[in-house]
């Protein structure tokens, strides 16, 4: 008997290019804690990519992931439907988020970062924290999980860069305002593009507000074996897949992370172009 491919039982688009998948993976569903992720490989010739587990249901054995199609693998994944399978899914990987009653927690999700932040926000809420959620995106269609965010927060702010929805501006703006208003904040969790997390860290640093970010370096195995996910935190090299992915934002070397993530940009573009051409051919064939 061998490991069977993992079956997709439900899919739903949350925004254009952002798709939710419920996948049958009983072992992972049983063990998952907020903040953990899976690494999956769609097919035999595929790349291994990390994705956060948004939710899990130990009873029916499913885990939920939310995928933003940005490159070849994620776009391919987003073409799959209920009944299709994913060849490999391994997890739950990474350390679970540290959850306790902090007091007032501001959870900031930029773009698909909202999906990554959601399980932790929910856990913080359940632990009795006053959760203020700030979610945003470039434009209205890219704001995802609004209802879910509302459910797990006591206050919700929505921002868009172009003002097409919520307040015009960046996700960091409401945080800045709260700080200027003198609101007491005990914890900030910021997940999104690197420049956004970096900016949040700079805002909270002078005030010494505990700030946590979830880092997304390139990963291969997710078990500490390759060292490809190494990030500089507190002057030390750490492996995001086993020591993280959440780290103290004030200790993170964001500049280094930005550079390392650009490592395969040329080849990723190549893959994507190939994939899109292939997809065109496929649809022509139909």
């Amino acid at each position, binding site marked *: *008997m*061998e*490991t069977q491919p993992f079956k997709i039982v439900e899919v739903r688009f949350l925004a254009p290019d952002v798709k939710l998948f419920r996948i049958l993976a009983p*072992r*992972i569903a049983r*063990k998952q804690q907020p903040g953990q992720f899976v690494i999956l*490989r769609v097919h035999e*010739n*595929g*790349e*291994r990519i990390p994705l956060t587990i948004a939710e899990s249901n130990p009873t029916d054995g499913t885990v939920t992931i939310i995928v933003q199609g940005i490159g*070849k*693998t994620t776009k391919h994944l987003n073409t799959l439907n209920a009944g299709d399978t994913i*060849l*490999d*899914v*391994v*997890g*739950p*990987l990474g350390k679970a988020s540290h959850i306790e009653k902090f007091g007032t927690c501001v959870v900031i999700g930029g773009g698909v970062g909202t999906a990554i932040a959601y399980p932790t926000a929910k856990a913080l809420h359940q632990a009795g924290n006053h959760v203020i959620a700030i979610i945003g995106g470039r434009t209205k269609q890219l704001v995802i999980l609004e209802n879910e965010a509302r459910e797990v927060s006591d206050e919700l702010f929505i921002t868009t860069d172009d003002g097409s929805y919520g307040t015009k501006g960046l996700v960091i703006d409401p945080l800045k305002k709260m700080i200027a208003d003198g609101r007491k904040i005990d914890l900030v969790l910021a997940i999104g593009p690197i420049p956004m997390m970096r900016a949040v860290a700079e805002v909270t640093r002078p005030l010494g507000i505990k700030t946590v970010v979830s880092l997304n370096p390139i990963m*291969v*195995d*997710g*078990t*500490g*074996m*390759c*060292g*490809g996910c*190494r990030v*500089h935190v507190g002057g030390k*090299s750490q492996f995001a897949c*086993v020591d993280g992915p959440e780290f103290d934002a004030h200790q993170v070397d964001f*500049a*280094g992370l930005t*550079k*390392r993530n*650009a*490592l*395969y940009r*040329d*080849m*990723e573009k*190549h*893959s994507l172009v*190939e994939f899109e051409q292939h997809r065109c051919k496929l649809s022509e064939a139909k």
Partner: protein
Amino acid sequence: MATNPLPPKARTAIPRQHMPEQEAAERAHNFSEVNLGFNFDITKQEALRCLACANPKCTDGCPVGVKVKDFIELILKGDYLAAAAKVREDDVLPAITGRVCPQEDQCEGACIMSKKFGPVGIGYLERFVADYERQTGKIGLPQNAPPTGKKVAIVGSGPAGLSAAGDLIQKGHNVRVFEALHEIGGVLVYGIPEFRLPKEIVRQEVENMKKMGVEFETNVVVGKTVTVDELLNEEGYSAVLVATGAGLPQFLGVPGEDLCGVYSANEFLTRVNLMKAYKFPEYDEPIYDCRGKNVAVVGGGNTAMDAIRSALRLGAKNAYVIYRRSETEMPARVEEVKHAKEEGIQFLLLNNPVEFLGDDRGWLRAASVIKMELGPADESGRRRPVPIKGSEYELPLDVAVIAVGTSSNPLVQSTTPDLKTRKGGYIEANTDTLKTSKPGVFAAGDIVTGGATVILAMGAGRKAAKAIDDYLCTGTW
């Protein structure tokens, strides 16, 4: 011995036979196997060289005691299948060990012929009979004992885990191997490249085990997906063998090691082998483009040779090995060093990088390398390299691969609190029974010894299998 018609003098007069191989210039650009294997004639010539010693040193030199003299005798009789079966009595992965054992330190190093005439090519002969067996498809799969109803979990599918699984299934136990990655084989599939060990061979061994009834579950990281305690208490396993290898990469700890273009050997080789980046863009895994680039590996072991020769095959213009000692101290197999040189790998011996230098985008552009000289011997008996003051120079590089050893992965140990470890996080296990401090749990291979060899891991796996069988039958720890 009756089968060898030659008197001893005539045997020693036959020169050691050469292994046919792909031309260096050609193989430097492909991932096909370098060594092509003996044909029947060469095999016979080489087998004729064996003196059939009354007290065969070769067997003493082999960590698992392969009955070399006997299998060579069977080769001379022309009964290659029997010869393969003879090897299999002690070595369950002969096609693999014949290719990757450091024979010069083991069987061949001990062979009586080695001093004056060159050792008998034991590894080549072992490979021949194993390949013959595989190609004829007549692998005599042993009969399993009647089912015992006991379940054994094996964590990790490298040579230690595989060999234990093979032995335990024969004893009639239910055996399930849990593997963190998506492929079975450990270092044999993610580390050692295709040009040295075709993956087809490993796959065939795994197929044999499946036919015998071993179950494999990939994508399970024990310690994360399930713990050792859960396997014992909730999933009904009576014993667990931890065979997780020594997979954690070590870095040099010099400035600039986090630059883009600096990899651990594990990452580099995993991308090339496991994710088949050498077939990019057919496979999606990107590996930093080596075409026309300057690539260096730091280290002098098998891993270093595998990485740099892979880089060469990916199109590197200059491929360097930077090693801080001299060639005599290099731990790599002699044959690999020879092959590497023939292929045009440049060896910067008694050199050591002290810093990696980047450009303004954070990409590697060069290494600052210092020259070394050999000082007095250290604890290991090897002469200690000492830096020569002021000898630093800049070596332009686009890619650097760090291959200076590995250490233990803590995932299992840290989630199994009553499992005792020793320095470096390796699991403490009895040398004979491989029992750990935790009842029902055994450990074998690199996770006990630190990075060693395929044959040692295999030998340990088999020892553990025997002890596990005893434990399951007697029920006493």
